[in-house]
């Protein structure tokens, strides 16, 4: 058997559970969006009302994408495409890093490389697996749309749009894996590329121009910078145009070929961005405690999260006024908007609020990642050495929790600061910088619940801590973004911690919700610090 085929089978075997979960999760989200639109917005007038509101709301455009008429398929694509495309990009990113840079970090690549295979064969196998996974993803997403009753050709193209974005980011991640020195940095940079693609599409869509019917919006130029924006231009259910897919795939193939060439030209374990190989001969005083170690291990990652938060905050603060100015050229839209949100400042506030909500999600994600460091330490055998010293496990877990909570707080604070500074520079009107800063901080109690849940899972069922941590965030995201659309019962939507944080400045601050979330986070953390003593250290 061809060695690349053999290696592809090996990598598929390693990934079978994980990829299945990703693909079913993404397709499930698409299916749920389609089913919700079909049942909740069965009438054309309902859909027209929904799309008009969307076209008049830059926040909606930023988060979701471009309204494209009232066809059921088009409304579904508007609601579901951007999120599924981001998830496809992340799936492909993690898939590639796992089998490339991470294998080199862990020494597995050396074993494979010692057998009679080409130097680039493992990477080629990963690209084959990634291409296959994205094709399956495209097919399953299409099948989900079809089973919800959407037309076949549109469903297939919509699935292909999601798959093509995944394929594109697979190649991007393959390239980044050659360049970055560690799996963590490769994942970070590639995931940031996915985030930037979402952000660029969001900016382009929010600045887009509505047509006379106010049911369709054409994107502004920044959307062209984004592969997710390209996929959106397929417009599968209206004026279908497969050309952007061809372009995405072609660029993807070129990047993949480049990645293979770079792999052939470098040593195993080497990288085009060099890592620092030396450090201090002695530890500073900060590195002699559990807390100091946790901080040291996470500070680099936290810096990355803070950069992302600053970018988001800056967009939140500068884009609102820009959008308002762009819209002032369209009187009918202005009139419609004035009916939906009275007052000029209201529109800017709505936009800021929506984007700070995303900052809350980033804050939670930074906390989850910090908390999951505990699991990595345990699996990779370092916890064993740490816990052989006269310090309790509770201290180990608490040190990490402190750093996780700090990460969450820092990300929200940075986003709020950036938004407040940008808003005061742009003189946008709307709420003052102080209120916007407070709005970002208002998400902290809900966001901190996530690292607390993650550490609790780590104490109780360590093998599942990563799935539970990220799964909880995914569930909260779906509940928050799609809960209303799916018509889910209130009690179910209330399960998302973010439902209990105040969407300031549009809503007033609700101290009850914040206190409840803080209490849950503290209780969960305390339980985790206690329960960690009750179980065996595992591997």
């Amino acid at each position: 058997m061809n060695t690349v085929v053999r290696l592809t089978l090996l990598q598929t075997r390693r990934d079978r559970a994980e990829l299945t979960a990703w693909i079913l999760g993404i397709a499930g989200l698409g299916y749920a969006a389609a089913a919700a639109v079909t049942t909740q917005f069965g009438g054309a007038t309902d859909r027209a009302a929904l799309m008009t509101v969307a076209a008049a709301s830059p926040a909606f455009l930023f988060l979701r994408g471009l309204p494209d008429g009232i066809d059921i398929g088009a409304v579904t694509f508007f609601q579901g495409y951007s999120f599924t495309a981001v998830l496809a990009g992340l799936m492909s990113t993690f898939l590639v890093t796992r089998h490339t840079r991470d294998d080199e970090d862990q020494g597995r690549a050396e074993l494979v490389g010692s057998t009679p295979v080409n130097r680039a064969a493992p990477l080629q196998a990963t690209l084959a697996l990634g291409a296959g996974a994205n094709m399956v993803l495209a097919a399953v997403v299409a099948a989900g749309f079809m089973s919800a009753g959407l037309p076949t050709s549109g469903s297939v193209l919509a699935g292909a749009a999601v798959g093509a974005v995944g394929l594109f980011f697979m190649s991007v991640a393959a390239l980044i894996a050659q360049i970055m020195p560690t799996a963590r940095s490769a994942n970070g940079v590639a995931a940031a590329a996915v985030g930037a693609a979402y952000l660029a599409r969001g900016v382009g869509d929010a600045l887009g121009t509505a047509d006379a019917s106010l049911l369709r919006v054409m994107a502004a130029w920044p959307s062209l910078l984004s592969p997710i924006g390209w996929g959106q231009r397929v417009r599968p259910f209206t004026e279908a145009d497969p050309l952007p897919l061809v372009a995405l795939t072609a660029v993807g193939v070129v990047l993949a070929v480049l990645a293979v060439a770079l792999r052939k030209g470098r040593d195993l374990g080497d990288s085009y961005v060099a890592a620092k190989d030396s450090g201090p001969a002695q530890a500073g005083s900060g590195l002699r405690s559990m807390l100091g170690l946790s901080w040291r291990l996470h500070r680099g990652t936290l810096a990355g999260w803070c950069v992302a938060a600053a970018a988001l905050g800056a967009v939140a603060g500068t884009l609102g006024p820009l959008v308002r100015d762009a819209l002032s050229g369209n009187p009918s839209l202005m009139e419609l908007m004035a009916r939906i949100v009275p007052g000029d400042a209201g529109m800017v506030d709505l936009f800021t609020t929506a984007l700070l909500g995303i900052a809350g999600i980033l804050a939670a994600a930074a906390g989850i990642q910090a908390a999951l460091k505990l699991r990595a330490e345990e699996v990779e055998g370092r916890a064993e050495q740490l816990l052989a010293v006269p310090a309790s496990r509770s201290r180990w877990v608490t040190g990490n929790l402190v750093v996780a909570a700090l990460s969450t707080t820092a990300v929200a604070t940075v986003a709020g600061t950036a938004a407040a500074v940008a808003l005061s520079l742009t003189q946008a009107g709307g709420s003052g910088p102080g209120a916007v800063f407070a709005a970002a901080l208002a998400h902290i109690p809900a966001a901190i619940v996530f690292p607390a849940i993650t550490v609790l899972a780590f104490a109780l069922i360590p093998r599942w801590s990563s799935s539970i941590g990220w799964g909880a965030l995914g569930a909260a995201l779906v509940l928050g973004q799609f809960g209303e659309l799916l018509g889910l019962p209130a009690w179910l939507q209330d399960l998302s911690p973010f439902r209990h944080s105040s969407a300031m400045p549009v809503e007033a601050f609700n101290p009850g919700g914040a206190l409840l979330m803080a209490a849950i986070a503290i209780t969960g953390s305390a339980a985790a610090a206690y329960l960690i003593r009750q179980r065996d250290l595992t591997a």
Partner: protein
Amino acid sequence: MQAESSPVIHTTQLVKNFGRTAALTGLDLSVTPGEVHGFLGPNGAGKSTTLRILLGLIRPTSGTARVFGIDPWVEPVRAHKDVAYVPGDVTFWPNLSGGEVIDLLSGLRGGADQRLRAQLIDEFDFDPRKKARTYSKGNRQKAALIAAFCRPARLYLLDEPSSGLDPVMDAVFRQHVRRVSAEGATVLLSSHILAEVEQLCDKVTIIRSGTAVESGTLAELRHLTRTRFRITTEANPEALAAWPGIHELRVDGNTIEFDADGADLGSVLDALASAHISGITATPPSLEELFMRHYNQQPAGQNHQVL
């Protein structure tokens, strides 16, 4: 006096199951103060599991474990107060330097003795400025040993500590085991290297399939092994074979080889006296034979699965 002689490590009928797999099946282990105790056994015999229980990292399914008289699961912090540990599989934080790792681990134990730290780094010829990610297996092992030895402890738990060390570094390692032993510390040394055990250890416990099969001083264990005889004789080998205490007889012309149990040496020599011997060599008992015997055989009726 009572406290002086009470064992530093004491386990009774220690059992540990991982799901359906039995790692320990009733281990008794006793290590007295000041002893260097060799802990031997084939791969998968349960050595690392025992060390993890002694550190309170995992909880025994049944039986008791005591370190300095303390239950390490209940009071890990108190039990670890004077313990230094080198794990069997040393992994470090890839982005910390070797020096930082040493200071971190010894710092959590109360801080390194700076003179000792400098001496160890020098003797092990270790570069503390390199990031841990760049260290080879041997260098990671050195860092773990330096971290363990740079702060005095009363008990050293060493899990195959010399794996990956070159012979020169191995000598440095042995010298430091002798040093801490001379200072009165207790050492539990899990190892596969016979020469290391013979050089360093006062007592040895051999563990197989989760239970101790031999325990005693090296002299006592030697007693359990057989002396190998090689004689040249005109006598009929068949007659010799019938003699009690003679094992594994091999005949090659008029050269005969056989093994004799230590307890039967007297009667074997009596038999040889009347056997018209023209040449004789006797090879003293070797521990290797004992180890190989225990490493190779699966004890009858024992099974790795818990039913």
